[in-house]
């Protein structure tokens, strides 16, 4: 091996070989005669024969080869290959649909093989983006070909895809569920942010508040979410029955009011803890200088403490939001709406594809929010300081 040649990229090598094994060994699609009966799994060679299956393994072997001697131009080539392979996954589903589906009632399910490959290919993409020092924005742009390919295939060939059928059956409902979900998360995170900052400031001022506050929030955090919804049921029902203006606001034992209350309760701890720690962690010397220079308490807080604490506070908002997106799914149980509705309907009807219709967008929303707030944190980091 030449001295200027780096050693094999073990991450990429492993990812490509494991992905290949999953591709060949697991079911890539499943076919069911109708919505109710369980489907039969099909592996790659069930669809296109052994020769075809071996041919499809070539891109992975090429990827492994590129990972063996990872010079920069080879990594760039590998990234291109990964992007193309991701874009080819919807095409594979289309091919399976055309080959296998023979009746209008038949439904095509996405198999474990596809999910595993999708996951591993995305990991490979992240690894390559890091190795090649590409910006976050480019990283996101790299997903676009796959999204475009999926859109095209859905429009042309993927009518039998079960997930797609579930969506088309309730597209209006789906959009309003996404809206409700985002509304619940937004209001809960917004409220807990406002409350959390006030609480964190009060905790810094009065140590008593700090002890009591963290104690209470910790206890709140340990109550299981379903139990908390149950606990809120009785008092809120009583309130709406006895206080007219609350009833007029739409407060009742089930629905949005208890959901929001519980979400805010759960969101407070990470929000308060991050904000508190962020405000505490600001270098004592900087604060000493700020006060010694003659800044008032308010000026120290607004011009020094808050801006310096901002990255960690944003980190708290990010964690809280991602957590709230997941928790809101459970809130569907008490009639708060949102994407969780599909999950529980799907569970009730034993229709896994309906569960996916609720779960996948929740996953995507969480990833999206995570990425957006992460980027915002980077931008707000003062002067590129650590």
């Amino acid at each position, binding site marked *: 091996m030449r001295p200027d040649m780096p050693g094999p990229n073990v991450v990429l090598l492993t990812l490509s070989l494991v992905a290949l094994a999953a591709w060949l060994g697991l079911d890539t699609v499943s076919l069911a005669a109708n919505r109710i009966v369980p489907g039969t799994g099909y592996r790659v060679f069930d669809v296109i024969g052994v020769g075809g299956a071996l041919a499809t393994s070539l891109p992975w072997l090429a990827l492994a080869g590129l990972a063996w001697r990872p010079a920069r131009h080879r990594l760039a080539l590998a990234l291109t290959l990964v992007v193309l392979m991701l874009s080819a996954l919807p095409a594979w589903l289309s091919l399976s649909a055309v080959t296998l589906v023979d009746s209008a009632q038949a439904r095509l399910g996405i198999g474990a093989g596809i999910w595993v490959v999708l996951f591993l290919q995305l990991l490979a993409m992240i690894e390559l983006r890091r190795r090649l020092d590409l910006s976050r924005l480019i990283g996101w742009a790299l997903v676009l070909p796959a999204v475009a390919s999926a859109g095209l295939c859905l429009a042309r060939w993927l009518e039998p895809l079960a997930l797609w059928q579930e969506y088309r059956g309730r597209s209006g409902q789906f959009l309003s569920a996404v809206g409700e979900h985002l509304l619940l998360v937004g209001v809960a995170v917004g409220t807990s942010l406002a409350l959390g900052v006030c609480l964190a400031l009060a905790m810094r001022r009065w140590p008593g508040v700090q002890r009591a506050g963290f104690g209470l929030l910790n206890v709140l955090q340990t109550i299981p979410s379903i139990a908390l919804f149950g606990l809120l049921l009785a008092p809120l029902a009583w309130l709406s029955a006895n206080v007219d203006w609350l009833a007029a606001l739409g407060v009742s034992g089930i629905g949005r009011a208890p959901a929001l209350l519980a979400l805010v309760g759960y969101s407070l701890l990470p929000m308060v803890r991050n904000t508190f720690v962020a405000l505490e962690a600001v*270098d004592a*010397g*900087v*604060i*000493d*200088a*700020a*006060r*010694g*220079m*003659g*800044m*008032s308490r308010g*000026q120290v807080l607004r011009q*020094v403490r808050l*801006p*310096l604490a901002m990255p960690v506070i944003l980190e708290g908002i990010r964690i809280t939001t991602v957590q709230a997106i997941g928790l809101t799914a459970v809130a569907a149980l008490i009639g708060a709406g949102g994407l969780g509705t599909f999950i529980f309907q799907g569970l009730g009807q034993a229709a896994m594809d309906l569960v996916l219709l609720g779960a996948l967008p929740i996953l995507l929303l969480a990833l999206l929010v995570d990425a957006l707030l992460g980027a915002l944190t980077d931008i707000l980091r*003062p*002067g*590129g*300081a*650590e």
Partner: protein
Amino acid sequence: MIDLIHVTRRFGAATAVDDISLSVAQGELCVLVGTSGCGKSTTLRMINRLIEHSEGEIHIDGQQIRRFREETLRRRMGYAIQSTGLFPHWTVARNIGLVPRLLKWPATRIQARVEELMALLGLSMEAFAGKYPHQLSGGQAQRVGVARALAADPDILLMDEPFGALDPITRESLQDELRELQARLHKTIVFVTHDMDEALRLADHLVVMHQGRIVQQGRPLELLREPADDFVESLLGGEDRGLKEAALLPVSQRMLPLGPRLLARERIGQRASLREALSLMLWRHAERLTVVDDDDLPVGELSLRRLVGARSDD
């Protein structure tokens, strides 16, 4: 002009500063020196009310400091600390302009003042104005810290071990710069340090503190020659005292006018200290040095006997 009159500070049952009286004249550089925990920083921080005094009175130009609003008082005084306390999210220029902005100076005046100060501290405007503190070396950051303290042209400068975290070479050059600045600006400076060499180099008025009390104060030479007790003596370096004293005296004080003899080969500037002269003699095995002025012209000579000879209190 700063006066501390029977000032005491207690923290609970502990007494951090115990009944000290101290007067710093206009334009004087007063150094508070002592071991850690002796109350020197507490004393400094009581002057700008970062710590309130429990008893006694503190006056600035004859007025009790409690008669001012805290912020007003602090904006009248420069403040520089060991960790520099530069705001990491602000550029150098913005950091320096902090107090003028607090005092609501017009933007053009702030800009001009920042440029003036950066020139004064030897920081080029193009290279440093837009930099962030984490991009500076320790010495540069401390220069910015001093520039910031001087920004609103305060009469009083409070400095809490500002050079404590720097390497010895940077520290010495900043000490020299501070002396030169002080010769030009004539600020009233209270400077806290635990480093006796630094204290002796800088002080017009040296205050030795121990366990919250002032054990001795006066001119550095006075303390060197007549330490009040064993503690002061040990702090002043015990057997190193002779060298410490020599470091305070300039060659010009001991040199003789040029005589009929040939000029000695080794030369030393008349502003150099006797300690440097002694070191040169040791290094070069020379018993005589030619003393030269700033233009390198011989103005006198210094012999080893003369250097170590009887003290002349001329």
